[in-house]
């Protein structure tokens, strides 16, 4: 197992403003790598902004973010997955097409069997040919989380999950926890925002904003 900065994710003296609102000032966090990091905080405390900033979708005003030993930006973009709270699936495509095209855009090798098996794990195989615009938010969320269950997803360094348990039913939550456990066992790092009181994982770091 790699040690030192190569395997660390650290925020040093970060400040972030959006418009006139100051979201963070001098924020210092060292994340548990590999491991599960649960980010908690009130509404509007900047949990989503933190994840967006780590995934480079927001630019910090001051401070440094060490992403696994200063990975180059392009390498970092290919080394993590960001699952946002709102679904990022195209309404005009079916669920299966969405996943197929998403895998293609990542440059991964995939086939229809893999995608169908993945949908079956989440129990949404029967919706594979439904247009996303016709699906309920729970099914959309499950389809979105299917992105985590590809072989290549487990080889990545980090998953950023923004409220992944929203809209999920009991089976969905259990399966998500299972694949999260598998990812952590494969030396992965998960940053998850959550409002849930009960956390089923044994080792995790709680970060309060």
């Amino acid at each position, binding site marked *: 197992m790699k040690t030192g900065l190569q395997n660390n994710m650290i925020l040093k003296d970060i400040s972030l403003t959006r418009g006139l609102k100051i979201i963070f000032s001098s924020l210092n966090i060292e994340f548990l790598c590999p491991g599960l990091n649960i980010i908690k905080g009130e509404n509007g405390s900047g949990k989503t902004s933190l994840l967006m900033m780590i995934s*480079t*979708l*927001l*630019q910090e005003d001051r401070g440094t973010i060490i992403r696994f030993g200063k990975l180059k930006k*392009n390498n970092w*973009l*290919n080394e993590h997955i*960001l699952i*946002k709270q*709102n*679904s*990022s*699936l*195209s*309404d*005009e*495509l079916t669920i299966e*097409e969405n996943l*197929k*095209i*998403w*895998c*293609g*855009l*990542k*440059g*991964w*090798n*995939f086939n229809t069997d893999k995608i169908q098996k993945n949908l079956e794990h989440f129990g949404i195989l029967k919706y594979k040919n439904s247009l996303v615009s016709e699906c309920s938010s729970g099914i959309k969320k499950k389809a979105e989380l299917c992105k985590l269950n590809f072989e*290549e997803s487990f*080889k990545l360094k980090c998953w950023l999950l923004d409220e992944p348990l929203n809209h999920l039913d009991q089976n969905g939550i259990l399966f998500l926890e299972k694949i999260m456990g598998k990812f952590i066992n494969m030396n992965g790092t998960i940053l998850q925002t959550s409002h849930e009181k009960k956390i089923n994982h044994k080792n995790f770091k709680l970060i309060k904003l």
Partner: protein
Amino acid sequence: MNINFKNILIALIEKEFKSYIRSINNLMNMIVFMIAIIILFPLTMGPSEEKLTLVSNAIVWIALIISIIPTLDKIYIGDFKNGWLEQYYFSPLLLEIIILIKCFVFWFFLIIPLSIFIPIFSILLNIPFLIIFWNIIIFAIGSLGFCLIGSICSSLTLGTKSNNLISPLLILPLAIPIFIFGNGVVEAVKSNYDPLPNLYLLITVCLILLVISPLISAYSIKIALTR
């Protein structure tokens, strides 16, 4: 991790193709709008053949351009709203190349079908055959330039609320060279001069846009995403 760039290209083209096929009403809107303009012009001008011959070429061009402009500012807005632009940003392929492919697909599936209507309308407006031929060539080249300008404006207005208002104002001044050289070709043909110099200038404008448009669009998309 092995990255298969062929897969990225196929996925990108498949996504765009399916989106356009499933929102075919965009294309139908453009065609209906164009037909309406071309029918209304002769009706409002009166039944004088001389007047019509004088302005017929301009009518076809105005109809084409006015029907294209409202769709140009929608190149990225759908993908921006449902989060696909972020997926493009996270893709291992350069955003500039993705944008270039997107523009080509937009041009091929939405604009080129429109050029099929040029001969039909031209016959209705009594335009000579030679000019119809040149019109098709100019439209095929000029419309690519138009899409590239549209890409710049569409990406610049991402995230603004009044992009319907701003886009035509941004597109029209940038498109003036295309109008001038396009019209220059037709005028040269009409008065028996060599149309090639104007055509070369038109191609030059499009080639310049081909280089600068993806760069500017990618830059403004990155700003819109990371704001």
